[in-house]
């Protein structure tokens, strides 16, 4: 599927870094509270420089291959555990035409049933639904299943002598619980999730304990592009200077760090509270501080912050954020380094999960294809906040849905600046989808370093769809 690019430059491929700018790790080395080894680790690997054909973003044939060979073999989070806190609680998770009832069957046990009656296939629960059940009863003829999936009742059993009721049970996908998410995998031979993620990154998350956070905001946005285009827009900081010029004033974009581990995990570390290398010499440290944009700028209040003589915007922001967010979140944040307080960490767990475990931007993304149109997708944005100390876990936020043309600024309670940044991404993605179809050059070209996560992502797509 790949197009060979004849222009290959000299030198060791992938070794070049943004000239004239400190690396992410050099920036972190000046912090007052030093980052732990999980953050100071670097894990880049050159993975090729061929163009990647556009067909995979456009054609129903490629989408079909993804459904048949990739989505049904990979780990995906279906919901948060907090969505189904009590036995019998359930929520429906769909991926393509596949649908699962995710239900808590015991205090520490969750099952994922294929959401189709074994009689004539009717979905036992509607897509997008959630609730509580003592059993799952088909709305068509009333076949009824116990919470454990076994058949509870078959109306007019005399007419089904050929059905072995003792052996009749709803088929299940594999389930694992990790970081407060319920993960499912349709492949009975799939490796355990810990093996799929790998020991190094599993260890990174031991400290984050996302299971101790709660869903404070949940947006579902319908996007005008293939799910991979949408996901890939969030795999790099390279676009920041052109797409989000205001964000660039306080983001180390061209000197962000990129890491890849195996086939399923990648990460970027974008240092915040520092000027973009693109803008060196054009702004002061005070400018950086003044324009620092955050997911919840509101928690900072109206006080004007000032960079002291010889100080840095990053240093001021680290102190202020720790102080203000400790109070706002009623959580003890003293064990977190400046980097963990400030910086943007984006982990991708292949295929469609993005975790931002940092404190200032505690986001989760999920991307799913639109089963009716490969040039559209469903993107979800969640904020996972720490549960305030001493308080009960708040119920998860209800999802707020935005259609194709709607702006993030319409989400109740969203920071207007933050909503605007996401709109800028959406605007590009519609143009990219159309341009991919219009282009005479039939593939996309990637940077060796800043776009390594996209390279790894597409390479893993190839590995799955290439395996019958």
């Amino acid at each position, binding site marked *: 599927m790949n197009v060979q690019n004849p222009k290959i430059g000299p030198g060791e491929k992938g070794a070049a870094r943004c000239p004239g700018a400190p690396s992410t790790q050099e920036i972190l080395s000046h912090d007052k509270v030093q980052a732990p080894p999980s953050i100071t680790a670097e894990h880049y690997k050159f993975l090729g420089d061929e163009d990647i054909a556009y067909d995979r973003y456009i054609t129903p044939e490629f989408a079909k291959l993804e459904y048949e060979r990739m989505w049904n073999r990979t780990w995906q989070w279906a919901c948060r555990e907090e969505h189904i806190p009590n036995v019998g*609680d359930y929520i429906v998770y769909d991926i393509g035409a596949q649908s699962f009832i995710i239900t808590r069957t015991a205090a520490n046990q969750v099952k994922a049933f294929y959401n189709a009656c074994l009689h004539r296939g009717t979905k036992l629960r*509607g897509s997008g639904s959630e*609730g509580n*059940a003592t059993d799952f009863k088909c709305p068509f003829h009333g076949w009824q299943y116990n919470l454990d999936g076994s058949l509870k009742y078959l109306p007019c059993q005399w007419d089904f002598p050929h059905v072995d009721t003792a052996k009749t049970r709803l088929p299940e996908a594999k389930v694992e619980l990790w970081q407060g998410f319920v993960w499912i995998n349709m492949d009975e031979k799939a490796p355990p999730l810990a093996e799929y993620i790998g020991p190094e990154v599993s260890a990174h998350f031991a400290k984050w304990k996302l299971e101790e956070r709660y869903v404070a905001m949940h947006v579902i946005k319908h996007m005008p592009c293939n799910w991979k285009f949408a996901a890939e827009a969030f795999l790099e900081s390279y676009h920041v200077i052109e797409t989000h010029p205001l964000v660039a004033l306080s983001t180390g974009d061209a000197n962000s760090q990129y890491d890849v581990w195996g086939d399923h995990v990648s990460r970027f570390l974008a240092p915040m509270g520092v000027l973009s290398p693109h803008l060196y010499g054009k702004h002061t440290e005070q400018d950086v501080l003044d324009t620092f944009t955050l997911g919840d700028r509101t928690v900072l209040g109206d006080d004007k912050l000032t960079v002291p003589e010889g100080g840095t915007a990053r240093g001021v922001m680290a102190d202020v954020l720790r102080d203000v967010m400790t109070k706002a979140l009623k959580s003890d944040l003293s064990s977190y380094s400046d980097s963990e307080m400030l910086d943007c960490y984006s982990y991708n767990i292949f295929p469609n999960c993005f975790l931002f475990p940092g404190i200032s931007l505690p986001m989760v993304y999920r991307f799913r294809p639109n089963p009716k149109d490969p040039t559209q997708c469903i993107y979800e944005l969640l904020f996972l906040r720490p549960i305030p100390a001493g308080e009960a876990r708040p119920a998860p936020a209800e999802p707020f849905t935005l259609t194709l043309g709607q702006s993030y600024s319409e989400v109740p309670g969203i920071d207007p600046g933050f909503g605007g940044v996401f709109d800028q991404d959406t605007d590009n993605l519609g143009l990219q989808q159309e341009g991919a179809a219009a282009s005479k050059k039939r593939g996309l070209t990637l940077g060796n370093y800043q776009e390594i996560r996209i390279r790894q992502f597409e390479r893993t797509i190839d590995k799955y769809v290439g395996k019958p």
Partner: protein
Amino acid sequence: MPGTYTRVLQTSEVPVGTKKAVDVGGKAILICNSENKLHAVSNICSHANETLECGRMGRTWIACPTHGARFELATGRAMNPPAVRPIKTYPVRVVDDWIEVEV
């Protein structure tokens, strides 16, 4: 012309996060207290006429325990299959610690 409100329950009988079925003039009504806001909705699912009172209540909805239809508490709107039609909602108010419903 203002409607007629009927006293149905004391507020203490429906703590936050709970619901209680009442009968008002022959109508089966469910009083729901979700996030400290009271709602009065029909207790009968618009899909197959099953009662909603044992269903799970979310921040803004109630789910039918029988087939899983879900309704918005504020408007009665059906949120997912198998229901399409809404359930009826009723004005509700609190007077002297009594919950009153207009039917």
